[in-house]
């Protein structure tokens, strides 16, 4: 499990892709597109160092724009859960 203390946030680290909270409406569309329930998405903790700065709440959906070695860029979604 993720550690509780987060000393310094480095959101622009080369390993950290772009994380953004997406609106409820967009989230609905994502769920509809993949025909799934929120819990069936990959998860992310509210305390995850990459998103704590975004003012995230449990239940939010995070859109992650990854750099991809096969596709150039790819989208990934994670569902925020309590720790």
């Amino acid at each position, binding site marked *: *499990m*993720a*550690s509780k*203390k*987060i*000393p*310094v946030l*480095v959101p*622009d*680290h*080369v*390993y*950290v*892709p772009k*994380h953004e909270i997406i609106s409820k409406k967009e989230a609905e569309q994502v769920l509809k597109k*993949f*025909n*799934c*329930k*929120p*819990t*069936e*998405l*990959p*998860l*992310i*903790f509210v305390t*995850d*160092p*990459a*998103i704590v700065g975004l003012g995230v709440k*449990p*239940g939010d959906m995070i859109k*992650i724009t*990854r750099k*991809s*070695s*096969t*596709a*150039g*860029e*790819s*989208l*990934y*979604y*994670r*569902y*925020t*859960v*309590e*720790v």
Partner: protein
Amino acid sequence: MSVQTIKSIAGIRFSVSSPAEIRKYSVVEVTAPETYDEDGMSVQGGLMDGRLGTLEPGQKCLTCGNTAARCPGHFGHIELAEPVLHIAFIDNIYKLLLTTCRSCSRLKVTQEELDKFTKIRNMDAAYSLLSQKKIPEQILEKAKKTKECPHCGKTQYELIFTKPTIFIEKTELGGTRLLPVTIRERFTQILDDDLLLLGYDPTTARPEWFILQVLPVPPVTVRPSIILETGIRSEDDLTHKMVDVIRVNQRLKESKDAGTPPLIVQDLIDLLQYHATTYFDNEVSGIPQAHHRSGRPLKTLTQRLKGKEGRFRGSLSGKRVDFSSRTVISPDPNIDLSEVGIPKSVAMKLTIPEIVTEWNIDRIKKLVINGPSKFPGVNYIVRPDGVKIRLDFVEDRSLIADNLENGYLIERHLSDGDIVMFNRQPSLHQMSIMAHYIRVLPGKTFRLHPSVCPPYNADFDGDEMNLHVPQSEEARAEALLLMRVQDQLISPRYGGPIIGGLRDFITGAYLLTKDDTVLTVSEFSNLAMLGGYEGKLPEPVTKGKEGPMYTGKQLFSLFLPKDFNYVMTSKWSKGTKGITRDVVIKNGELISGVIDKSSIGAEEPESVLHRIAKDYGNVQAKKFLNSVLIIVKQYITHYGFSYGYDDLELPDKVRNEIQDKIQQSYDTVYDFISQAKKGTLKLTRGLSPEEALEAYIVNELSKARDTAGSTADQSFDETNSGRIMATTGARGSSLNIGQMAGALGQQSRRGKRLLTGYNNRALPHYKEHDDNPDAHGFVKSNYRDGLSALEFFFHAMGGREGLVDTAVRTQQSGYMQRRLINALEHIRLEYDGTVRDPHGHIVQFLYGEDGVDVAKSDHGEAFNINRLIESQMIIDTGKKATKEEISELAKKYTKTFNSRLRNNANEALLDSKLSKEGIETVCKKGLELYNKAKVEPGQAVGIVTAQSIGEPGTQMTLRTFHFAGIRERNVTLGLPRLIELVDARKKPVTPTMDIYLDDESKTDREKAIEIAKNILQTKISSLIYDSETNYATEIKLLFNPKKLKERGVSIEEIDQVLQSIKKFKTEINGNNIVLKLVDESDAPTVITIRNKVMNTTVKGMPDIERVTLVQKEDEWVIQTTGSNLAKLFQVKGIDKKNVRTNNVFEIGATLGIEAARNSLINELSSTLEDQGLEVDVRYIMLVADLMCSKGYMQQIGRHGIAGTKDSVLARAAFEITVPTIAHAALAGEIEHLKGVTENVIVGSSIPIGSGTVDLYMQVSEKK
């Protein structure tokens, strides 16, 4: 055909049996310890009571009236005189005792908290799922600490649990034993709501049922008795154990009735508990094992289920099969690549069912007349009424043949052209089982083409292989469509060919295609015919003494597709430092260059073979390979090729040269040693003087071996067989030649020279502290001349390590493979392109992020745009297209492409000199290939991934440490590192960081050193040269000024840090600090204080043990041993966003799960790449995504993915079988049978690949 029922089990619910239930199911109360009476009849009320089912075939069951074949067996029961604890639930009993009040049996948590937990539990918000799972844990933690019940106010006592079955409560009156009866009473009162909070399902598992009052007696079918040859009946272990239980139970009952003293009764109760415990599990720690009369431990219930040979893994996940065969394999280069030669005797035992129709009746009649003992014949006939006739017992087969009618089923011998599945263990990847066509041959071994050895990893030193004959049309169709050898040419691991020419085929190809090879017309014609060439003969291009001659290249060209164009560099050209891009094929004609491993070799991507397979299809590639291999084989057979002692003879001049060069190196080594003694040896950062000296010596000696080897190698001319084999890639390397003709070189153990073994010497034959490299395992001799006795011993030492290494490695990689398979087997590709587990949890939104199947890709790319352009160039006419035209066309066709592919295509097209039409053709072709390369729904991407990562594991080295010349740090590499990564360990064995500096400091060495000093952990112990301790009053620390300066620490700073420890007052005294103890204390305390002081960090960051500055392209980079990201980010002067560590877990904690995923991908790829193993990134991505899909890093193994699977059976079949089932029972879990293992266990088809498809029917609603 009979109607098959597919999937009749909807699910399996696990629960704990209540005593009432056990009694209800019971057909007999077992009271008699005897099994059979003197007449051999089963005793009524005994363990073999006829009502428990029947074993003997003729006998009828007294309960159901069926015979042995149909009677399922029936349970009985034993009424226990005293309740006993169920050992499988003992941990749950303990936890329940801890969490509930001893008086009112409520949870020892306040009502408010209970309400809070209930609220969380009942919350249906999806995000609180994880919080819900943690409730039982939290309640346990809170309840443990409670001293007084918040509900009834009663005092709670400490509970002592003595494993395995004794609970003692510590009251004011001393310890009282908690008897099962008491525990049972307490549990009966626990409220259902409370149980729900603890994760129990009270409807299926009340905790009082964990205390057994009745013991179910399994039916006799579960514990059949065996009659030995001597006629003595031998009972099953379970029966023996039950007898023990009944005996003690009876004695206990009698003693209780007779009013025996309670102490003796208690002893009997304990004995009953012991027997009940060992009945369930005979490997419980803390109690002696129950033994059979012979002294062998009994195999009781748990032992039956557990482990590799247990019920789950041994009998349910892996089943025995009919229609299979196993024997030794041997090579046959004359058969087709896709064939397997089988002995006639095997062909006559294995059969294929065939239904008689009007089209085959004549043929079958002949077969029937041949019968079972004449090939090809028939072994059985099944009449439409179901009667099976064994032809061995039929007198007149022609009569039966005459009576054959349509609809009869015959089981005929295997014959040429039938399809079978061929397999060699260990089956590490999908190519370990392939479909071959049968070729019935004389002899007693299975014959296979040497070129299919690589996928099976087979050789002919006694290997055996298995053969399976598919029996249904569906199975045959599937084998034919998916499993044939030609469909496995391309390995899904890296998208290149895994099958191809090897060994002598390569040598032969070289000999045939080298520039001076000429063939007479008759030789040429014979070979062409052998290769199956049917076209017109080309014109001979040269002339010899005997008239017109063909070249070898012409012969090879016959089998190339006519429109094939290709340019590449041959291995031979690289080896002999010849010209690059020497192999030129134009319009199916080999113009120049030689054909060697890089053209037709196995495991060679981007080769001629690969191109043919990609551009012309697998069938064409197989045909090409077959033809080429057979002519090449024939050519080399006639040419004559051998390698022997003579081929390794060196002229004296070269021998002397080698000796001289070795002696020179020895002199250099002596020079190093004397320099080291004088202290003038140039030290390398990060290494102690001894280490540095050793590194220099090792380096020098390896140079000596290399020069000796290459001198020998170079002295052979190009026609030397050894050199031909080494340069063409057929077998061996120049290193091998060097070792045979030059010198063997340094022998090593654990990556070090042979330094110890005896006192200061490696062998007793040398003097102590001998500096001569000979004394430490440097072998000057070569294999040809032979080794001296001492050299031989050193060589054997190194050789032994190799053997041990292999043995250990196979085990480790085997277990890793098993874990990977278990974690990934159920992952498949869905119709919407997502990768999910069978419960719908998404792992990836698009497979490999681009949806391309590696097996259908071109070495990892959807298609090779440059290849397309190149081949178009040759036929292209017309003027070059303008930029605008190209962009427009590219835009039109690349709409569906992902950004990287689109950019690549655009760039390549813009660079090309094609006409507009040419561009359009390329685009069309590209789009078509792209669409073809996409993964298909249902694809078992998980299994392929697991195999693609697990299989190369077997080829990795085990060496933990790696000294790359004179490098500064040790890093774990190879298999141990790979295992460490998939284990998701909290801390790697060798944590290390690469710290890049900000623009200001990265070019400035001084600044870099300053930063490095701030990072390196400096403890007081490393700054002092001595300490003086006066145990009564003070500790004196004597600091070394040189070290203080080196580390950049001042006395004042140290003093500052020491202020935090309150045990003493400090006093600075020049370069010393005196610690005056505040309280007087005994010596051990003072020692503790001293140790604490010594370990105090005065500067730098914890865990960073060593730092080294490395220059990378005029930029200073700090490399560390030890890793501490969180602290590092607080340091100034570093480039925070570029810091790397190999501790993936730490990245997860400081940078988040997505960063951890990226770092995991990087680490996995570099580990594999480092070993020269090619694995496509898509697989690595899938593993990383799966490991990170729950928001934290999950291990591939029992504590991670395999342990948190939704399916009970899958978990039980992996590891920790019995506790898994026990937990499933108390939680009332339901097995939905959606995954792979579960369905294998229950025997239905698996939901992967062709099993994904199901037929649904829309039933219209009633109106």
